[in-house]
């Protein structure tokens, strides 16, 4: 089986008010960050054995539901699970 780890984030051009609020929170604790962006993490377990096939499926899932391309983008990494 293959596990896909998907990270969905707001596009760089979109202001992320959550990230800005957290950045300010970190500053109150004495941490300075150049930038903080918040996204979501999705894990999907697939009954595939080839990464190419899994990638195709995940890309379609992202396109049709998991990601709103008006404002979001995603990255994905795969792990083969024995």
């Amino acid at each position, binding site marked *: 089986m293959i596990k896909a780890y998907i990270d969905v984030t707001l596009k760089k051009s*979109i202001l992320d*008010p*959550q990230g800005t*609020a957290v950045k300010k929170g970190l500053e109150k604790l004495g941490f300075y960050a150049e930038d903080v962006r918040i996204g979501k993490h999705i894990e999907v377990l697939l009954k595939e054995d080839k990464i190419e096939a899994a990638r195709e499926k995940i890309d379609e899932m992202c396109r049709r*539901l*998991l990601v*709103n391309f*008006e*404002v979001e983008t995603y990255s994905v990494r795969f792990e083969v699970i024995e």
Partner: protein
Amino acid sequence: MKAGVIVFPGSNCDIDAYKVLEKLDVEVEYIWHDEKIENVDLILLPGGFSYGDYLRCGAIARFAKALENINDHIEKGKLVLGICNGFQILTELKALPGALLRNKNLNFICSDCNLIVENNSTPFTNLFTKGEVVNFPIAHGEGNYYIDEEGLDELIKNNQIVFRYQNNPNGSVYDIAGIVNKKEMYLV
């Protein structure tokens, strides 16, 4: 005219919408998300938190049985009104362009709000005059309308912007508070 208010698990302004239509002497019924829409002239998608806003606001609602034949409904020239979460559902359905993001200041805003009528030639706004300032209640955490520049030009060109905020409360692009589709079927 017959209206149907679609009720999703998590809708919370469905009763308000029903009562308003009833007061206006419109024949109105509730449509549970799991029922098919039949023989209504106006579909109203109410506010609230359909399906707990899981994944994204409105993202799961678009799979509801009640919305399966929404495109046929539109093709027939019937009306759809999406308020608040209803607007989010319509953008997720790609029935309206753009998307709704978290309010710029992250606050949930619940207040009265002045809107400027930009387009009074829609079936929803034809009793207003253009430029008139109207007061509407707003209540949303994700009402920050986003559309890219190209999309915005298109909205302006096609006169699809119906309401703009007088004092933008949430960071919406171009102070947009309400839009219609090209056929003038939807409104925020």
